[in-house]
Structure formats: C-alpha cells, structure tokens
C-alpha cells in the first residue's frame, strides 16, 4: 500500500542575501515516513529546513504540503497547517520556564489540553520533572527534548528536525532516537531530519536523501541503509 504524499518540493531555490544556497531541490515525503537528509557540511541541509518551515523565503520552485502550495506563506501560517520545526541549536526560549516554552508550542494548533501535556511528559519525563525550571539552565540534551516536546504538544503531522544529535552525549542521542520512533509508530507523525551522526541515521531513518551543492544528488533506500560504508562515503568530508 502506498501512502499519500505529505510534503514535496520541486525546483526549490533559496539563499541568503542574494547568495543562492539551494539550487533546485526536488524531494517527496509520504505520510508516516522517517526520512533523513544527509550530506557534508555546508551543502545546504539546514537551509533546506529553514526554507521548508518558511524562515527563509523561497526564491524559486514550489513547496506542497497536504496538497497545498505553501511556499508563499509566512512561517507561522505553515506551522498552523501542521509543520513542527526543531532547529539546529534548539532555540528554546532561555528566560522562560519549561512549561512556558511548551505553552508557546500550543500556537501551532491554537490550544492544547492536559492530555497533550501528559502525552509529551510520557515521552520526555525529564520535562515534567523540570517543568518550572528556566529553559536556559537545562543541559543540551534536555533542551533538545524540550524543543521536540514543544512542537509535539500540538501533534503536528510533519516534524522537521535539524541535527538533533548535535552537541548531545551519545546515550541521550540513542534515547531521543528511540523516543522519536515510538512517537512515529504511535501517532503516525512524519519526520524529516538532517543528521551527520551515522548511528542516529541508521537507527531512525527509513530512507535517506543525499545533498550536495544545494541539490539532492542521491536517494538511499531502506535495504541500502544497512551498508555502513555507502552512507559513510556520502558523509565524508
């Protein structure tokens, strides 16, 4: 059974201050998939994430989400359609409590219930424990869990994760990967993530896109993912 296409781009272009980074990206993600975007540093993976959520305007091409063209919409409108974005560096609101951070995440859908909070706390128990603590004083791994919990509070259909393993100790990375897969299984949320960490890619991804010089240059299917060397070659600097 083939699932519906949730997100697709065609010839997507974007860049900073007239300097083009994305040079025509074509990709397609189906409902419930977990797809990794891999590639060397500076090939435009994070730029792709920012262009998908709308923090960086598309200078050309199309982005279609749930059958609707969204490339002209501001980021907050795309979010309310059901896209959750977890940026590189996490960007928690440092001078607000964990609970207040989650409250901002409610904006994706407009409101959340006590059950939504319980669901997020079940996935990330540390957030319940630290709910009154200022987010800026959490460790990197805790901030990452908060940044993910903050979008999950609104049950988005698509989550964009930008380097979830960056600056986090390996044991926590594995925890986060397992939790994301659990959430994917139980809610059917679609996940697109940028990653350099081979273990996290092999644990989570069902398939991969490989980026180079602002384009998708290869796609790796599920059975090829077992081949460590193939992936390592694409990640090599």
């Amino acid at each position, binding site marked *: 059974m083939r699932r519906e296409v949730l997100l697709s781009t065609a010839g997507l272009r974007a860049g900073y201050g007239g300097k083009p980074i994305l040079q025509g990206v074509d990709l397609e993600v189906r409902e419930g998939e977990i797809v990794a975007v891999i590639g060397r540093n500076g090939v435009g993976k994070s730029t792709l994430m920012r262009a998908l959520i709308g*923090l960086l305007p598309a200078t050309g091409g199309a982005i279609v989400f749930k059958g609707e063209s969204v490339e002209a919409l501001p*980021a907050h409108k795309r979010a309310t359609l059901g896209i959750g974005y977890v940026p590189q560096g996490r960007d928690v609101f440092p001078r607000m409590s964990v609970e207040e951070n989650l*409250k901002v995440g409610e904006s*994706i859908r407009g409101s959340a219930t006590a059950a939504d909070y319980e669901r997020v706390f079940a996935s990330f128990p540390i957030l319940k424990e630290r709910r009154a603590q200022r987010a800026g004083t959490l460790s990197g791994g805790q901030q990452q869990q908060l940044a993910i919990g903050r979008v999950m509070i609104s049950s988005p259909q698509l989550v964009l994760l930008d380097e979830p393993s960056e600056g986090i100790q390996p044991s926590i990375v594995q925890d986060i990967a397992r939790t994301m897969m659990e959430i994917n299984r139980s809610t059917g949320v679609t996940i697109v993530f940028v990653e350099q960490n081979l273990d996290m890619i092999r644990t989570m991804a069902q398939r991969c896109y490989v980026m180079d010089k602002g384009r998708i240059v290869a796609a790796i299917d599920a059975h090829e993912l077992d081949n460590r060397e193939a992936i390592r070659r694409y990640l090599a600097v």
Partner: protein
Amino acid sequence: MEILGAVFAAVYQFGDAFAFLVLSACGLAVIFGMMGVINLAHGEFIMCGAYVTVMTNRLGVPLPVAILAGALVAGAVGVLVERLVIRHLYSRPLDTIVATWGISLIATQGTLIVLGSTMPGVGTPFGSFEFAGLSYSYYRIVLMLSAVAVLAILYLFFTRTRFGVLARATIQVPSMAEALGVDTRFIYAMTFGLGAALAGLTGGLYAPTMTMVPTMGTTFIMEAFVTVVVGGADVFLGTAPAAAVLAVVKATLTSWYGQLFGQIGLLIAVIIVIRVLPRGISGFILRERA
C-alpha cells in the same frame, strides 16, 4: 513630631519622584525592552494622552474615564504608527530613531497649528492635606499608587496571560516563535500599541497637574530615557529598581538644592551606571543568573 514630619516629607518626595520616573519610562521601556526600538516620539504619545484626557474631561466625562480614553487613543495611534512606519524599519534600528524623531516633530508642530500654543487644562482634583505643618496633594498619592499598580498589572500581563507569554517568546527568539505558529508581526504591533497606550496613560494621569502645551512631552523625556538606560532592556528587572534608585537621587538633591540639581544628579547617576553596568541593572541581574 518634627522628625516624623521630616520622614514623611522625604517619603512623599521619594514616592513622587518614583511615580514620575516609573510612569514616564514604562511605555518607553516596553517598546525598547520588548522590541529594541528606541522611540523618540514617546513624549508625543504622552502629550496625545494628556490632550485627549483634557478634551474628553471638558466634555463632562469623569476624569478616570477620560484618562482611560487618553490611553486608548494613544494606543490606537501607536498601532497605526507601527503599521505605517516602524514595521518597515525593524532591520534598521538607527533609521527607527530618525523616523520616530520625525513623527515627534510632526506631532508637536501639528498640534501647535491645529490646537494653538496652549489649551485650558483641568484642575488637580482631591485638594490637599496638611501633615506636621506642611501641605501635601492627595492627587500625588493617587499618582504613586497608579505607578505601583501599572508595574503590578504589567507583570501579571506578561507572565500570566497567553499574549504575554507569546510576546516574551517573540522577544527572546523571534524566528523560533514565528516557526511555532506565533504571528510575530501582530505581536510587535500590539506591543508597540501597548507602549504607546502606557505613554498615553501617563499623559492622562499627569494632565491635571500640568500646563497644556504641545511640547509638554519633553518634560517626561529626560526622566524616561534615564530610567530606561539605567534599567536596561528588561521591563520588570530594570525599570522598577532603576526608578527606585534614581528617585532617591532625585528626591534628595531636589529637596536640598532644588529642581535643577535633581536633574543634574540624574544625569550624573546615568553616566556612572553606564560606566559600571553597561547593560543596565537588568543586564547585570540576568548575567548573574544565567
């Protein structure tokens, strides 16, 4: 009794200076602290609130209602100014200074042309009372209570309401708030409107104590900027303690050497604070906590 009288006089002077500093600065502090915009038209929003208050009061509307009307009109003008001018300059902070200065000149001269060089005011209500041989104004006590109430309401607004939480998120990491579904342009417009409304409220509250002239806003400007500079970017951690410290300086020097030395004292205080704490009191507190 003489000592009690002197203590009361000192407390009253301090309270009066504190109220003036807090009320002068709160609107400017909200706009600067929350948005990073330096609003040189702050005094004209105060003037707007004062004029609207006096005009509505003279139509027979009770003074408290007239003051609220002044705040509302100034707030509405603020939202309009944000839409038409400020919004286009968020990435150009220096240009905002020039633009708001221009708005300030237009507002002052426009008022002069339309309403003349002066306007009959309204008298100060409630009269006065005597304590230990000195006479005090009841209305000044009302102003002190208003300053404390404004601080309390602002605090509750920014910590307890949904809008307040979203506004703080927008100030801390604007791009992330936007990516989480917050309409940050709306938040900025409302925040600027709130700052303008607070300035209007200040104008309305002080209108009964002042001469109504188009340049009356400048009376507040020096105190407002000194308080915001000393306080730093955080409205709650900055404005209230800065106003308290500066009120001691101002009240002491004013009662000993007169108004002029009170003002000079404030300027010296601000120079010292900038040398020691370049990011103001709140910058200092936040660095300690981080």
